[in-house]
């Protein structure tokens, strides 16, 4: 379908369009035109990604100076989906292009996705490694500049990666033919042509129109500096599925240190010391060279090869200092001694047997009092370590990861004064007796990590199916959006039925509140909800629990009570496990069971692995049951500190934030059932606290608008009756006419545009008339008056 918004011609890869999609595109265009940031909430499953890509690609292709699109998503499946969506869009654009010239232009359009080496490696041995960190390290060993040089000068002397070498023989900028490449495509291309997919993507990044990767690649300064440094300022940045963006921001600047890590760091330091001694005897010029370089400042462009950087400064490019490294850590052996002292200090701190919470400033003061370590050299710790490791040409860097963490910690703690807190927890839980100390360095302010993004890029789009209340995000992330919009869902018939179950059939109130959650009556009532729904709902049912701990204990309890035996009679049962790969296989089987008609139940956790990025549309999820309100664990000290910070800095009340956070996650879980408006599903909220108006008000409008007063306070049996009724109705032929109301054809779009234009004109006229009119009767009205 082709239409125009203002003067921008849009090509949309479907014959119809939802009104929400149209409105979304209009608002998005407004924000892009204004070169400002925006927050948009669009109902899940109404084709957000396709509208977004369709508008932005049209935008890029229409205006003479194309702005690059940086599209960030949360998970690899979502990245792959977005790439597939883009691929189809571009194929459609090629098909629609009228002249050969425009066709050629569309064909030259390029889109790529980036993920880790672990996911993109095709080296037969390296790719077998289980841990991403090990893959990274081994890959670096095979591909870093020094190794390559040695290997090329003297073939066979060192092992090189053939796939990486083949890439070097090709013309930079044309490693891939133009087009859109999904991750699977790139992997296949790599296998077919014997080139490394990871470096293909990395090296092609400056040449693409769209790059799709995960949030971390832009928000986490350690990664961002490597991969996102060269992106131009006028790029359009999109954070899709951004409802948890504040958590990603916080995570990217937080670090945990444990005793085993400090021990490992200590060992690495010793090893570094040995290496230095060795190199001193063999090649002392190298160290001298490094020294000179450090005097001149950290930034040295010569070494700026993507392959070499193994870790980078946890600070952001803005904070990068172009000044000389302080004298007392310039010499390699001095730096090693410095690190040793620092690690020893941290180890001593860990011996304390009571909880300590302190600000970075107080930590630095104490550090200085005890060890005489100053703040300034501490700031350079990460950079200095990187430089040293490069000079020593070390291999298997994964063994140094603990030391890298300590160095990052040192740099961060000495850089930020506000928005961070150090918490030392000597015991894992309150009633543990064996100490297992953890030193949390926790970021409290999500705006710190995202600020550089807002400052650097002119248009940042934050969008998701569930980011209500909208004003929370600008507040937390400290930015001013030019457009801030949420769209209701237009439906000709209610495609989903949200139900709030507050009590079991025996009228006992159900809740996942800590005090009652293990009450047998509550457990049984939760169980009977699952049993009853597994009897009446076809195909797939997904159930979410508020935490892993609760899910694991309730699954065991249900098994002992014989509840699961009832479920087995009707459906297969799959459960999320701690292991990601194991869970993926369970998910795959779950889908097979749904496709086959046997039907299955999937038990998983809100905010867990499955709740992010896996869709349960159509037969994969005919009902979602939310057992309990997914509140965070309020006893967590980190959470408490964050709440306190939010209250003091942004005037967000604790209860407000907790409620908001719980509801956005609940909404996210239930929102996964829909894709398209003919899809249908039940959304069951099983907790009496969902009945409260203030809770429901925090749900996105498109869900909330369909919760009726009767459906907001039900017992299990009543909910079942309603559900049966709903399924009977929804299973009727949907061939009623959706067009015009919840589905627009091209004509409808044009009509809407005409109407809008008329409205605008009227508004303008009204404005004009206001100036002259006496505010009573207009001339037109007098003419129309029929006397």
């Amino acid at each position, binding site marked *: 379908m082709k239409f125009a918004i203002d003067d921008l011609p849009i090509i949309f890869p*479907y*014959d*119809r369009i939802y009104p929400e999609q149209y409105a979304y595109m209009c608002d998005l265009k407004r924000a892009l035109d204004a070169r400002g940031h925006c927050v948009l909430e669009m109902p899940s499953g109404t084709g957000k990604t396709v509208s977004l890509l369709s508008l932005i690609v049209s935008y890029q292709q229409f205006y003479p100076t194309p702005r690059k699109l940086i599209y960030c998503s949360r998970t*690899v*499946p979502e990245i*792959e*989906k977005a790439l597939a969506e883009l691929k*189809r869009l571009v194929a459609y654009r090629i098909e629609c292009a009228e002249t050969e010239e425009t066709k050629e232009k569309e064909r030259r359009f390029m889109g790529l996705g980036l*993920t*880790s080496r*672990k*996911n993109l490696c095709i080296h037969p041995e390296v790719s077998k490694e289980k*841990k991403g*960190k090990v893959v990274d390290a081994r890959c670096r060993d095979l591909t870093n500049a020094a190794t390559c040089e040695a290997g090329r000068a003297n073939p066979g002397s060192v092992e090189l990666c053939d796939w990486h070498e083949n890439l070097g023989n090709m013309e930079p900028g044309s490693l891939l033919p133009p087009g859109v490449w999904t991750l*699977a495509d790139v992997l296949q291309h790599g296998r077919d042509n014997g080139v490394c997919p990871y470096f293909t993507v990395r090296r092609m990044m400056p040449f693409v129109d769209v790059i799709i990767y995960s949030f*971390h*690649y832009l928000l*986490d300064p350690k990664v961002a500096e490597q991969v996102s440094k060269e992106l131009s300022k006028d790029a359009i940045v999109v954070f899709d599925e951004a409802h948890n963006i504040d958590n990603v921001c916080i*995570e990217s600047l*937080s*670090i*945990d240190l444990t005793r085993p890590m400090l021990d490992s760091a200590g060992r690495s330091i010793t090893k570094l010391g040995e290496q230095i001694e060795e190199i001193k005897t063999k090649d002392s010029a190298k160290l001298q060279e490094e020294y000179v370089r450090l005097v001149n400042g950290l930034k040295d462009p010569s070494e700026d090869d993507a392959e070499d950087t193994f870790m980078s400064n946890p600070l952001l490019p803005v904070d990068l200092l172009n000044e000389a490294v302080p004298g007392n850590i310039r010499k390699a052996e001095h730096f090693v001694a410095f690190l040793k002292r620092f690690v020893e200090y941290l180890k001593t701190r860990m011996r304390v047997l009571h909880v300590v919470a302190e600000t970075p400033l107080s930590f630095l003061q104490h550090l200085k009092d005890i060890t005489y370590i100053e703040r300034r050299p501490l700031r350079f710790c990460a950079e200095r370590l990187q430089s040293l490791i490069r000079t020593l040409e070390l291999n298997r860097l994964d063994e140094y990861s603990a030391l890298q963490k300590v160095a990052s910690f040192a740099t961060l703690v000495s850089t930020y004064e506000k928005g961070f807190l150090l918490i030392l927890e000597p015991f*894992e839980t309150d009633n543990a007796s064996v100490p297992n100390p*953890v030193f949390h*360095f*926790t970021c409290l302010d999500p705006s710190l990590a995202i600020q550089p993004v807002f400052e650097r890029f002119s248009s940042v789009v934050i969008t998701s199916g569930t980011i209500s209340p909208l004003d929370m995000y600008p507040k937390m992330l400290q930015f001013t959006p030019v457009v801030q919009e949420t769209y209701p869902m237009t439906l000709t018939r209610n495609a989903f039925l949200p139900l709030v179950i507050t009590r079991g059939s025996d009228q006992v109130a159900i809740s996942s509140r800590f005090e009652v959650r293990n009450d047998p009556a509550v457990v049984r009532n939760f169980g009977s909800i699952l049993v009853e729904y597994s009897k009446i709902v076809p195909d797939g049912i997904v159930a979410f629990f508020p*935490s*892993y*701990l*609760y899910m*694991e*204990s309730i699954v*065991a309890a249900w098994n*002992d009570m014989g509840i699961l*035996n009832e479920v087995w009679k009707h459906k*297969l049962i799959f*459960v999320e*496990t*701690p*292991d*990601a*790969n*194991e*869970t*993926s*296989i*369970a998910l*795959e*089987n779950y889908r097979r*069971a749904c496709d*086959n008609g046997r039907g299955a139940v999937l038990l998983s956790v809100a*905010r867990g*692995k*499955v709740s992010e990025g*896996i869709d349960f549309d159509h037969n994969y999820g005919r009902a979602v049951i939310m057992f309990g309100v997914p509140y965070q664990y309020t006893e*967590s000290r980190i959470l408490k500190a964050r709440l306190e910070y939010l209250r003091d800095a942004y005037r967000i009340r604790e209860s407000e934030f907790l409620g908001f956070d719980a509801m956005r996650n609940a909404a996210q879980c239930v929102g996964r059932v829909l894709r*398209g408006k*003919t899809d249908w599903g039940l959304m069951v909220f099983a907790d009496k606290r969902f009945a409260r108006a203030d809770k429901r008000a925090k749900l996105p409008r498109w869900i909330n608008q369909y919760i009726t007063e009767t459906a907001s306070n039900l017992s299990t049996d009543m909910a079942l009756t309603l559900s049966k009724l709903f399924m009977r109705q929804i299973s009727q032929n949907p061939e009623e006419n959706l067009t015009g109301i919840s*589905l627009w054809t091209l004509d409808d779009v044009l009509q809407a545009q005409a109407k809008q234009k008329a409205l605008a004109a009227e508004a303008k006229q009204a404005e004009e008339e206001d100036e002259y009119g006496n505010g009573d009767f207009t001339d037109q009205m007098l003419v*129309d008056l029929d006397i």
Partner: protein
Amino acid sequence: MPPSVCTAKASYKKLPGVLELTDTHLQWAQDGKGPSVRVPLRDVAALFCSKEGAAQVRLKVSLVEDDTGHSFAFTSPKAHNEREKFKAELTLIVSRNRAATEAAARAPATANPPPVMKPVTAAPQMPAASQAPSRAVSVSSADQRNLTIIPGNDPATDVRLRKTILMSHPELGALHRELVAMSGQLTEAEFWEGREYLLLSLAASENQDKGKPGQIVDPRPETVDGETKIVMTPQMIHEIFEEYPVIATAHRENVPSKLAESEFWTRYFKSKLYHAHRASIRSTAAQHVVQDDPILDKYLEKIDDELEPRRQRTEPVEVFVNLGATSEDHGETGNEKDVTMIAGRQRGALPLIRKFNEHSERLLNSALGSTPAAKRQKLNADGDYGQIDIDDLHEPESSTGIVLEMLDRQRYYEGGISNSTSGSEALRPVDIKTLIRHAKVNLADWETNLTQLKIERKPSDAALLSMTQNVAARLDVKARKNDIPDTLFRQMTICQSATNEFLRQFWTSVYPPSAELQVVAAATPAQREAKAAKMIGYLSKTQEKADALVYMGPQHNVDPVRIETAMKPVINAVNRAIAFHQSKTSKPAPRR
């Protein structure tokens, strides 16, 4: 002819044929020939079945004198179900026989199992030929048109399907008997035309593999007379072996060389192995009281409660559900999760959770076969886009639709035009201000108007009266319901349903055929016309039938008027059909 209890297609000595169980005999006939194997039921001594999931579904019958017996392999697509049916029937017979022989051994005088001695015709018979409806089938099979309604099914299966339907829908069965079998007014094919969906759905549901029941085998102890017992059935043992291969190994290695069968199980249920396998929170507590068992403890495996599963799976996972890729997409960041959000802290639950996932997978694989790795990597059949496509945004494929046939179409449109011209004034844009003003004028003085409102006595009385009468009439009807004698009532019902069937046949032959069910070879217009005429012939007799019923009324002490009223709608419908038919057949003439 003895009615057959069940029949199925089965091969015997590699020859295809039909196996049939009658009241007296188990017999097998090669296709198209007479029964070559006939076993009197009282001779059946034992029954053997092939394992579930074996390539062939076999049933072996051994006889009293002859241990080798006969072995049949079921060949139809739902062989499994059929075998189960035979098995169920034969098991009863076998147990009866055994009881009888035992009784005979005890008291030979009383041992006289009463076999039903009936002469059995040895003529080749269709499996269901003993039933009245199927006689009609063979009659109607002369009518060349499709007996086989579902493509790919042979007539025998088809007949069986029809029989099942007729037996499960008594009303339909009665109708069928009335119209097809008894009077022959309709042919078999005609009767089923328009009812194919019944056959299709039955065939579909029969062909559906039900799969194994989902419950995990969990032998729980029962307390009987203060003694704790666990009752084991061969089925349970089989499931336990399947669920826990290690027990199968233990069983194979120790029974009967070291342990007797029962001893093995007694020890197993006392062993740590059993408690490890139960994997419930409760059993972890019991772990400490369980004694060591030198034999079975060897088979104890490490409990699968680590964060990573004991059995690592390396096969690639479909991209859209690959959670591992996300966790490896970037280095770990941030603080560790709080205690409640760390997966796997409840160690005791992990083996249980894994057991669920594995059990579900096993069940799926038993039904579907495991997914080959190559297929798994492909996203799905319709490429990458199937999972991201929003189908309702596509242009719906337009259907041709049926042109509405109307009398005087031209005039209708003209009328519309003239209407619209006259109505155009009304459609003029409404001036809201004027409207409001009018409304206001109308509403003025509403209070005085209201006080002046007077209700005329007469009409209101009349209204009340009519309402009372209405209620009284209903009460009356309720009070004397169902007083039509049974015989008459049944006749009326039969007359009605038969007429309805004729009507249905008539209208389907008049209306264009539905596009959905193309299984029936479409009838030619001439055939359809002939059929319509035939139906009209039947229908025109309805009036007589109704009159006869009305006439019978007084004999049964029923008011003829009531019968007439009851039959009225049918008569109306019939008259309408006749009128339509007449207008249609007479219409082309004047045009010519």
